């Protein structure tokens, strides 16, 4: 399917062996190819509607065109359909492609190419990679994570979904997952299941590849407090899987998870190391809101607006500082990232409440007129209020970030643990019979 004669990633060297072209040469070829093959970007983001596969088809076609031309997986191994080039070739292509329309798979695109595939490359067997990575690069497989569970939120490893291997060697998966972004239009899910209940929590876990359409898999969209429905929940009812579907080693899933979390958190805002705090005017949304309710000259409203603006500036200054600290000492980056996360979790709700105070009654009920800028400002304030705790909870609650900062940055003594040194089965039994007595500290 791929026309190797025009492989942009390899020239034939003098010794007859192929080698990468010089970067500038590569870049020039990419520029030419892009100009000929891609459309200019129009700016609008594709929205994927449930049960509307047509929404995806065009994106898949575009991805396939990139793949066929050798511009997918530029830095991924050639063995699995990639180009095996250094990272700067990948960056060069991205730079040239700016302003052109690239495949947009929405939130699932990020999960597929930024998390799942990278995790597979790190941990899956060669056979697994050969089976799935090329299809991913060709746009045939979109992946999500089946990771969080209704009964295990912050306690990431407290997974209860269970996979049992029957005598014939078939794995039987039962349980449920939640908060998988965009699963309703994905093809596959990476699913973390408990495969051994008689060892401590982090040990008896295994990752599986689960087809979204396998018998026994049910995927439902979750309607959120704001009315949106990006997240899904999944139910597994005797879903049959094989040893081929195992990613990494059986019972060693936590090692895989740690890699995955690194990829997942890697692109966080806290890595923004721009030193400068850019001026953008004083909280334009709140100024607009105050204007819409006639409070622009009210000293109390102005004080609230500026308070929010000052917090905004301090948050941006924090990210700059964190970036510098991470650069100076990369080993602390993962812990320091908790500051960025916590600042959102703490200040988003504060800002949303300031907005509600500024808007007053008009920010809780407004004209039903989408064209009215006042109504828009007010509706936005209300929506921000409802959604303001998202960052306080999702992807590690404020409490988890505070633990990380307290223990890993400030060096405070650890919380006593009650789930590390005994079989997970007992952990759950003991927790249900909790009395708080008789703990030991070591």
């Amino acid at each position, binding site marked *: 399917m791929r026309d190797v004669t025009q492989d942009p990633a390899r020239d034939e060297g003098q010794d007859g062996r192929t080698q990468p072209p010089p970067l500038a040469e590569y870049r020039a070829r990419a520029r030419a190819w892009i100009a000929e093959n891609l459309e200019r970007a129009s700016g609008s983001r594709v929205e994927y509607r449930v049960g509307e596969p047509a929404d995806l088809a065009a994106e898949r076609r575009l991805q396939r065109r990139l793949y066929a031309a050798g511009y997918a997986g530029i830095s991924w191994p050639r063995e699995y359909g990639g180009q095996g080039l250094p990272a700067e070739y990948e960056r060069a292509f991205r730079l040239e492609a700016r302003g052109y329309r690239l495949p947009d798979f929405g939130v699932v695109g990020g999960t597929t190419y930024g998390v799942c595939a990278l995790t597979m490359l790190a941990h899956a067997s060669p056979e697994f990679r050969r089976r799935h990575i090329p299809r991913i690069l060709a746009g045939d497989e979109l992946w999500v994570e089946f990771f969080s569970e209704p009964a295990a939120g*912050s*306690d990431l490893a407290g997974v209860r979904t269970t996979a049992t291997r029957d005598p014939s060697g078939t794995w039987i998966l039962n349980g449920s997952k939640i908060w998988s972004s965009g699963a309703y239009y994905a093809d596959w899910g990476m699913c973390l299941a408990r495969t051994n209940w008689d060892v401590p929590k982090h040990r008896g876990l295994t990752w599986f590849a689960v087809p979204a359409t396998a018998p026994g898999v049910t995927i439902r969209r979750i309607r959120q*407090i704001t009315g949106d429905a990006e997240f899904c929940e999944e139910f597994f009812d005797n879903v049959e899987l094989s040893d081929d579907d195992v990613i990494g080693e059986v019972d060693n899933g936590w090692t895989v998870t740690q890699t995955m979390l690194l990829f997942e958190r890697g692109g966080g805002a806290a890595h923004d190391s721009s030193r400068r705090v850019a001026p953008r005017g004083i909280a334009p949304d709140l100024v607009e809101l105050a204007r819409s309710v006639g409070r622009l000259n009210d000293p109390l409203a102005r004080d609230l607006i500026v308070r929010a603006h000052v917090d905004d500036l301090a948050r941006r200054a924090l990210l700059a500082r964190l970036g510098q600290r991470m650069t100076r000492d990369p080993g602390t980056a993962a812990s320091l990232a908790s500051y960025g996360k916590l600042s959102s979790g703490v200040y988003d*709700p504060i800002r949303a409440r300031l907005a*509600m105070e500024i808007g007053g009654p008009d*920010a809780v*009920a407004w*004209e039903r007129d989408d064209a009215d800028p006042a109504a828009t400002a007010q509706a936005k304030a209300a929506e921000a209020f409802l959604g303001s705790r998202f960052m306080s*909870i999702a992807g590690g609650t404020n409490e988890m970030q505070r633990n990380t900062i307290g223990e890993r940055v400030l060096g405070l003594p650890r919380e006593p643990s*009650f789930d590390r040194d005994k079989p997970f089965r007992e952990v759950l039994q003991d927790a249900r019979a909790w009395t708080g007595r008789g703990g030991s500290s070591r």
Partner: protein
Amino acid sequence: MSVDLVVSATPEQELLVETSARFIASTLPLSQVRALAEAGRAPDAGYYETAASLGWFGMLADERHGGGSASGNGVLDAAAVAAERGAGLQPGPFVGTNVAVAALAGAQPRHAELVGRLVRGQARATWVAGAVAGLTPDTGRVVASADGDGYVLRGSVRHVADADECDHLLVTADGVDGPVQLVVDANAPGVGRRRLEGMDITRRGFAVSFDDVRVGADALVGEPGAGAREAVERELAIAAVLTVAESVGAMHHDFTTAVEHARTRIAFGRPIGSFQAVKHLLADTSLSLEMAKGLVVAAAEALGEGAANAIELAHAAKSFVAERGIELTHACFQVLGGIGYTWEHDHHLFMRRLGADAVAFGSAQWHRARLGEGIGVG
């Protein structure tokens, strides 16, 4: 006794609260409230008639009007009922009708018939409070001009809850000599009720407009001017206190849900309520809730007794509960975690309601500013 607003309730008050709570649980439980909200519908007439039979709309009228309080303090009774209503997020113009009943029952005898119908649940009313003399929050304004021996009304007011369910409107308007209060047929020509979009889906908000609405002299409630000033101040206090009573009921329910979750939800081999982060957040929230309940009761008692500090306490209660209510719902959200973020869980209904209650009949800042007018005076 689910909300336990009035600790030292009389036996009659306890009975009123118990029957009200039972009525709510059996007639319009949360699941039904949600169904109505999602359909954008109001409760049916039977709901109001049964509620009326329990005394919901007669507590601020005397026995002559078919009303009467359970404990001798009608505002406190009404607050106790409001708290149970809030816990169940009951929709409908309970506050509005009670404000109208209080205003009409204390006014000219010619309104007795209407008061009787309101008290019996055969009609419903609400208060359309135009901004007058700094006594009411500025959410619009109605001007009453003399017209023969009656008036003509022009203007509009936003944020009137449940206006489409009401047969009558108590309109506070700006007249030549100060505030004028008039009772207006909600279906009279020129009266407009435009539905607003809103955060609180369990209450339906309207903008009510008056486009040359003519009313006779018999529409007058009380006397214009100084008399109306005092009446409007009292109406606002009643509306504020009954609103915060509903709020503390909603706070109580949301809080109870979060506590139960903290007791039973397990993470890291422990119930999450055994973590200080959760336990202390809930303890602080509980303190706020107890303070809020205490202040609502103090304000309701004072208002029902006509105490000198009644208006002050009403302002204090409204500003305190508005802010603590929003804090509480955020705290509960944090304890509930992800499930609180789903449409399916009831938490967001309480969050919406408490957000809306916080500004109904005046925001925290507005009430503080009103209270602050007394600073440095005398």
